């Protein structure tokens, strides 16, 4: 079967770098561009997509799919009614209950191996059979089983990073010791950047980043007060099409289309 879609994992070394906001808004941007997109919350230790999307209950969670309890069809929630330009947006959520989080934290290596098998099978089911253009995986930060499984399953890894010194150091190590070993196509997104209003400021940041990470830079996202004030409750790509953050997301989406 010819599979044309791509799997993108959004990962970071540290927490709080904006992975979920980036994953959600990038998915919405692709959908607004008329694509068929699926977004999965694979952050089983701190699920947040259900809160951001204001979905309190789901019949089946991604936890159930990875546990082998149900097929992936049961997990998908259709949010296409929120998309304006004929695109389609589906999500799969991680179970946010404390019991589920505890259960997922106690899995053994054999379970993680089966989970990898199930994630790899998504290429056939989601991209192949269902014809999605993009499957975006929002992961847990750092070197955890669930996030490495997602990275291994992906065609492209987007690394969300900030200029925090420990984040820079850890991200650099992760690029060398994880992504390079799995020969992953990787792009960096620098988030929450202060002072990139001038052109020279932006160029300085770009040069600095390329020197540090030695991988392509997908985009620089300035620290927008509007984004922080929205407390994650606004999907900018859908609700604020003229906002500079939305424009940056569109540039990123176009660039990813080019890569893919």
């Amino acid at each position, binding site marked *: 079967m010819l599979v044309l879609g791509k799997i993108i994992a959004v990962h970071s070394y540290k927490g709080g770098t904006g992975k979920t906001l980036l994953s959600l808004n990038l998915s919405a941007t692709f959908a607004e561009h008329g694509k068929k997109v699926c977004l999965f919350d694979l952050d089983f230790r701190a699920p947040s997509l259900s809160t951001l999307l204001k979905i309190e209950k789901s019949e089946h969670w991604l936890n159930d799919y990875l546990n082998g309890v149900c097929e992936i069809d049961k997990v998908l929630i259709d949010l296409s009614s929120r998309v304006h330009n004929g695109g389609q947006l589906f999500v799969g959520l991680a179970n946010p209950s404390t019991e589920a989080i505890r259960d997922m934290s106690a899995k053994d290596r*054999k379970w*993680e*191996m*089966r989970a990898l*098998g199930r994630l790899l099978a998504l290429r056939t089911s989601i991209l192949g059979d269902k014809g999605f253009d993009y499957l975006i995986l929002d992961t847990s930060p750092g070197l955890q089983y669930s996030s490495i499984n997602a990275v*291994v399953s992906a065609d492209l890894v987007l690394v969300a990073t900030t200029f925090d010194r420990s984040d820079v150091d850890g991200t650099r190590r992760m690029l060398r010791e994880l992504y390079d*070993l799995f*020969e992953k196509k990787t792009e960096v997104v620098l988030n929450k950047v202060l002072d990139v209003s001038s052109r020279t400021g932006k160029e300085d940041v770009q040069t600095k980043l390329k020197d540090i990470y030695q991988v392509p830079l997908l985009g620089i996202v300035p620290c927008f007060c509007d984004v922080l004030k929205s407390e994650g409750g606004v999907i900018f790509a859908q609700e604020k099409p003229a906002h500079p953050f939305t424009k940056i997301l569109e540039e990123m989406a176009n660039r990813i289309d080019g890569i893919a």
Partner: protein
Amino acid sequence: MEKAAVSKQEVLAKRPMQVLEKIRENLERLNEKMEIMIELQKHGKKDLQQPLPDAPLDVMTLLSMPDHLRKTAMSLCRMGRATAEEISLQTKRARAVESAYLNQLVIMGYLKKERNGRKAYFFVDKENQGVSLG
């Protein structure tokens, strides 16, 4: 009577073909064993250290593997079940090289191998894996 004679002739005609096929299969097996020996000489025995009993082929195991074996194991994880020829198309390495690496992974306990006629198929141990890798 005539019919019986024809059938006997057919059996006799097939016999050399069967013998040749058996020889070819044995030569293939011998070839695989030689490939393993060559790999052992090249990389030393350290790659073939036995894993813990029942150690699964998970991402942490993949990370700790030598680069040449990881590439092969990753391709097989993606394909689920494949011949050395099919893996070599993915990795762009020679079939014989992939055959040797796959056999190493079998010896290490991470993969299983089974023959279907002339072809040898490699796959992740279903008992451990539990699901198809699709």
